[in-house]
């Protein structure tokens, strides 16, 4: 009895002794929450000032002109969505097909090298993508379409597609690869061909994961700054007609990066840029959270 008591007490001390560490560890882990909160508060604080002065014009106003103090963010918002949807139109089919091919068709010995190259594609800095766009893609596109200037929404979409493909492929391939072997073998044993197995077993099981990867790709594309800025031409006007991909556009991250440096501290201009940043933050926050929820509810989960 006495011994039993001693044991509980000693284990309590052991636990207490190890607790300071646990507290340190907990603090480290909760940094992410704290920082995310701080980010929201500080960006919102600066942006709120612009919203209270400019009002909904910051979202729907058509003209952005610093000289006449007009801060209408609609052309940028439109430009961002235009470039992002253009890039996704290219990267979704390419990315999903590549993911299926890597996970299901490619022989095992080739899987790792191909995956590694896609991973390298993801780690190329955006400024290099922008450089490639400026030095190669933009001149090519301008001569192909006979335009005076190749820095247009189409060029930006193409470069962005290259940048979002690795996100889509990486996550989709992982999810597709983690469909249990038993399911596939069961289908094969019933006489299904490999393609039928992929179409009727693998894809239905992994479709929510693929959807999540597309949403993360969207988040990455809409927040991309430097590469787009370098090749989009940066004209703060909704193209005419609005679906004209051969026109130059401006994006939200682009205008922030370009004009933050010159905006006087505490000015309305700076506030307006923070306001646009806040909108961007909220959009990506919602999209990423939704993607996370979808992945958590998915029938199969990736290894990571």
């Amino acid at each position, binding site marked *: 009895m006495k011994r039993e008591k001693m044991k509980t007490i000693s284990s309590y001390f052991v636990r207490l002794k190890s607790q300071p560490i*646990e507290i*340190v*560890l*907990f603090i*480290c*882990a909760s*940094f*992410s*929450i704290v*920082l*995310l909160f701080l*980010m929201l508060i*500080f*960006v919102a*604080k*600066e942006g709120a000032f612009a919203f209270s002065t400019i009002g909904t014009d910051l979202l729907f106003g058509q003209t952005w002109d610093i000289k006449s103090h007009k801060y209408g963010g609609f052309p940028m918002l439109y430009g961002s969505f235009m470039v992002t949807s253009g890039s996704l139109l290219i990267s979704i089919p390419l*990315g999903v*097909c590549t993911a*299926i*091919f890597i996970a299901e*068709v*490619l022989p095992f010995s080739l899987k*790792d090298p*191909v995956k590694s190259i*896609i991973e390298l594609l993801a*780690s*190329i*800095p*955006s*400024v*290099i993508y*922008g*450089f*490639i766009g400026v*030095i*190669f893609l933009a001149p090519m596109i301008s001569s192909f379409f006979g335009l005076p200037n190749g820095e247009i929404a189409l060029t930006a979409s193409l470069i962005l597609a290259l940048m979002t*493909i690795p996100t889509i*492929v990486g996550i989709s391939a992982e999810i597709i690869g983690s469909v249990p072997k038993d399911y596939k073998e069961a289908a094969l044993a019933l006489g299904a*061909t*490999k*393609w039928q197995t992929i179409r009727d077993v693998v894809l239905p099981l992994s479709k929510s994961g693929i959807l999540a990867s597309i949403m*993360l790709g969207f*988040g*990455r594309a809409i927040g*991309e*700054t*430097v590469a787009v800025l*370098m090749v989009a031409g940066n004209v703060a006007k909704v193209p005419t007609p609005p679906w004209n991909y051969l026109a130059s556009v401006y994006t939200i991250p682009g205008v*922030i*990066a370009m004009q*933050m*440096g010159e905006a006087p501290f505490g000015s309305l201009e700076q506030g307006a840029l*923070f306001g646009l*940043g806040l909108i*961007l*933050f909220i959009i*990506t*926050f919602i999209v*990423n959270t939704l993607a*996370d929820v979808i992945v958590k509810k998915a029938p199969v989960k990736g290894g990571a």
Partner: protein
Amino acid sequence: MKNRTKERLLFTALGIPTVICLIAFFWIVYILSMGIGTLNWKILTTSVLQGGMFEMIVGTMYLLLGAAGISGPIGVLAAVYLVEYAPSGKLTRIIDQAINNLAGVPSIVIGLFGYTFFCTQLGLGISLAAGWLTLALMMLPIVIRGSEEAIKMVPVSFKEAALALGTTKWKAISSTTLPAAAPGVVTSVILGIARVAGETAAILFTSCVLITRGLPKSPLDPVMTLSYNIFVKIVALGAPPEDVFGTALVLFLIVASLALSAIILRTHYRRKQPWLR
């Protein structure tokens, strides 16, 4: 038989996008490699003021090492907490969600935050230190996720053996689990460095200048970096892209070698350590 050929065709069709991705990568490498002619040892080692890129290279290194020094320890400890200590409750779920969200914040927003919080609120100004903190913020999710995976891969029996010998939980983890997970942890930090090595938007208004006198002498001095140089020369100064060919190639080589070494390290240790897959 007919079905089989049909399937062959279908799989080949599926392979085309994969080939396009691979070609895109090699095409990028090819274009960049054309800049090799503008590089020589002298340009790499002469000062920016005399048309070289010495301070930009060293400045980039300074930024990366500082950011890794901040996010590495915090990220690893956070990963230890999440894998070994975190109770499965609401708070843990929120932390997990926050890490994913942090990873998805656009770099320009991180830059805005760095500008208001680190530069203005904390009074660091446009400085190396502000850049460290901003980039550390971007690296953190990558380091945490990578370390988590590395720690999860270590068999529980290691820790249990230490616990059976009467050590405390932390002692058991720090003396058995962490050393075994070390290669994976290091890989995740290198991968994190590779991800932010060419970052421009986040350090645009927190720590960079185009030209300054020499290397930063204290953490409160601004710094010159490769990525910023490329960006400003093309976008703000409207220089012909050929002017920054060499800079772009050097930056690419740094990033690619970091990313490649992380990938190689990972494959190597997965093979070497029998308890890993």
